[in-house]
């Protein structure tokens, strides 16, 4: 077909390139945040994620307090290494950084390139080399605090899991180390009330019953609508098609009031029931469409052999409908996992009962607004599971989509 279509090789190239560009455009936003979730927070603000594999130039300040002043003529000379000074020693413990420029005032922290001689405020000289060694001279007796030096250092890329650990446990690196020192296990730290790990578990708690229960109810109903003959069947199917598009917004207020009246209130039970109700139309619709297509012969010969409807359903229809059941299960799983609206309304509003989406949208975006490393990590904790499900079960998802909208 391709060659008789008169497609020139030029056109083929154009197609390849434009698809490549589209794919890249589609991936860039996700990749950007994904890369950032592994970067050190100082590096995120200092250079774009597209520069992540390269060294980052960060500006530091320190006091030259590691060298002993030596008198040479009427001048005092101090020599030492910047990376060893107490204010920055910890940041450069790995010893891979190199200095690009230095300065003596906060206004111009990188006034002189490394290796050149600069002038200090009291008229002396200061030289800082790329390897961190420095030498300064002064006419006055230096005090113990040492000279204030600003410098720009190229720090090698720093990829870490710190953002993930911080967001999951709600404790900073130092707090976690303290907790370890006190003898707490990783699991105990992870179980912290305020950590996002709690919300991650909550999401599972909401999602799994909300996926399984509607499937069961819908499968029986779908069988009745597909293979049993009774008055009003057409009308019922039409109703279900209509209910497919009822906006959830309508259900929020009346159902919350109902839940409050019957004593469920805002709770996990409430959200399970709500998701079950909201998922049913699609479940029944998808399953019925699939079951109608099953071969009539099998069902009729089973009936002739004396099988009851219940037996036909459990022994023939259910196993044969597995692909449709899987499709709907994936839909419902993705939908309940990613839902923000229902969780916001039907779950209590304290941090410990929030699901991931609500925690991110209502809490983290406000309190951690500019802290991109943390936000990115939180986003990917919540994205990881559905994306994994998506890639492993894509076949069923596509099949379900097609059954739902193409006839």
């Amino acid at each position, binding site marked *: 077909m*391709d060659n008789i*279509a*008169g497609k020139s090789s030029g056109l083929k190239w154009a*197609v*390849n390139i434009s*698809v490549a560009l589209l*794919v890249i455009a589609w991936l860039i*936003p*996700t990749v950007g*945040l994904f890369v950032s979730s592994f970067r050190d927070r100082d590096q995120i*603000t200092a250079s*774009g994620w597209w520069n992540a594999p390269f060294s980052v130039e960060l500006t530091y300040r320190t006091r030259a307090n590691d060298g002993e002043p030596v008198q040479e003529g009427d001048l005092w000379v101090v020599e030492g290494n910047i990376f060893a000074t107490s204010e920055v020693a910890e940041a450069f413990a790995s010893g891979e950084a190199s200095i690009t420029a230095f300065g003596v005032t906060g206004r111009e922290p990188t006034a002189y390139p490394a290796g050149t001689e600069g002038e200090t405020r009291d008229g002396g000289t200061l030289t800082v080399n790329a390897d961190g060694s420095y030498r300064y001279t002064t006419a006055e007796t230096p005090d113990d605090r040492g000279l204030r030096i600003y410098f720009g250092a190229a720090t090698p890329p720093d990829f870490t899991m710190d953002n993930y650990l911080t967001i999951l446990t709600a404790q900073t690196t130092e707090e976690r180390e303290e907790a370890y020192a006190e003898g707490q296990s990783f699991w105990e730290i992870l179980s912290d009330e305020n950590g996002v790990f709690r919300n991650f*578990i909550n999401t*599972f*708690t909401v999602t799994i*019953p909300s996926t*399984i229960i509607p499937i*069961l*109810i819908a499968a*029986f109903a779908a069988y*009745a609508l597909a293979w*049993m003959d009774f008055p009003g069947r057409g009308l*019922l*199917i039409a109703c*279900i*098609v*209509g209910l497919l598009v*009822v*906006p959830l*917004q*309508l*259900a*929020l*207020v*009346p159902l919350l009031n*109902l839940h409050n009246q019957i004593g469920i209130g805002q709770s*996990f*039970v409430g959200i*399970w029931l709500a998701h*079950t*109700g909201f998922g*049913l*139309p699609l479940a029944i619709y998808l399953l019925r469409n699939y079951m109608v297509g099953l071969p009539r012969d099998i069902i009729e010969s089973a009936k002739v052999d004396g099988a009851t409807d*219940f037996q036909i359903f459990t022994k023939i229809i259910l196993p044969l409908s597995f692909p449709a059941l899987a499709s709907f299960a994936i839909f419902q799983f993705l939908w309940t996992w*990613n839902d923000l609206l229902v969780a916001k*309304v039907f779950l209590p509003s304290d941090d410990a009962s929030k699901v991931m*989406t609500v925690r991110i949208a209502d809490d983290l*975006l406000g309190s951690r607004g500019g802290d*991109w490393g943390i936000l*990115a990590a939180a986003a990917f904790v*919540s*994205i990881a599971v*559905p*994306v994994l499900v*998506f*890639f492993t079960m*894509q076949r069923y*998802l*596509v099949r379900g989509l097609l059954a739902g*909208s193409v006839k």
Partner: protein
Amino acid sequence: MSPLLQGVITIVVGVFGCVGYFYAANLILDKVIFPPRGPQAGRNINRATAVRPWLFLFPAIFALSLYLVYPVIGSLWRSMHNRAGDEFIGLDNYGFLFGDPEFLQALLNNALWALVVPAAATFLGLLVAQLTDRLSWGNIAKSLIFMPMAISFVGASLIWKFVYAGDPDIGIINAMRDVIGLDPMDPVQVPFWNNFFLMAILVWIQTGFAMVILSAALRGIPEETVEAAIIDGANPFQLFFKIKVPQIMGTIVVVWTTITILVLKVFDIVYTMTGGNFGTQILPSYMMSFMFRDDGRATAVAVVIMIVVLPVMIWNIRQAQKEMR
């Protein structure tokens, strides 16, 4: 870990409850109420067959009426009451809405969303579906473009907030502006156009959906029509616009309406990106600004959303009925 335990118990109770209900109900029907023996065996079998569908349907019908039908009526009723819910005030809530400039803005923006997002997503989806159709790595490309479907609207908003970030060392948009010498800007705060920047997020998510369905439709086109057109000398563009597109028009309409319905319900993106500020309010997020504060007005907005969706609903039912014949 108590909610976790509660979850496990619910799964067990729910699953066994459902299975138990269906099994027991069938058993009682067959053995106790209409046993297929004795003088009326024949009549009993017929009766049992007439009742059984309703046994199978009962839990679904019950849940659907409680969770979808009752709320429609409940919301309509509630929207005609005041904030406390104890006084009937007729259409006053609706009167308030149509006098509120923010509501009118939300209505206008929603119309814009409902026009732009389905059009853009369907167009891009069709484009990708056609381009990847004969490509050796087409399936990988499709799967990558389809991937945002799995990401929550909240996650997607966060991803795009990062793209739109004002600092040229963080947001890639501003980094590009920086390279060509423009000042950094915040796309989310540019009046009017910020709506389109938010819509881009939903288009990004929905293009994959459109692509998957349209791609299957393109594959379903009879080869003969394409071959005939090629023999008649059609170029690739004529082939696409004059032969293929008209044949999948039905599917395009389905995709378009499905995305339109979704657009009318999504509140997450606006809520996460701007909270409805900077003139980006849409109806679902406008409703959330009343949720937990004034149920009367919140339900009134919900009813307006329902009325907007109603034509699509009727059209859907018509289509379904046509197919059943």
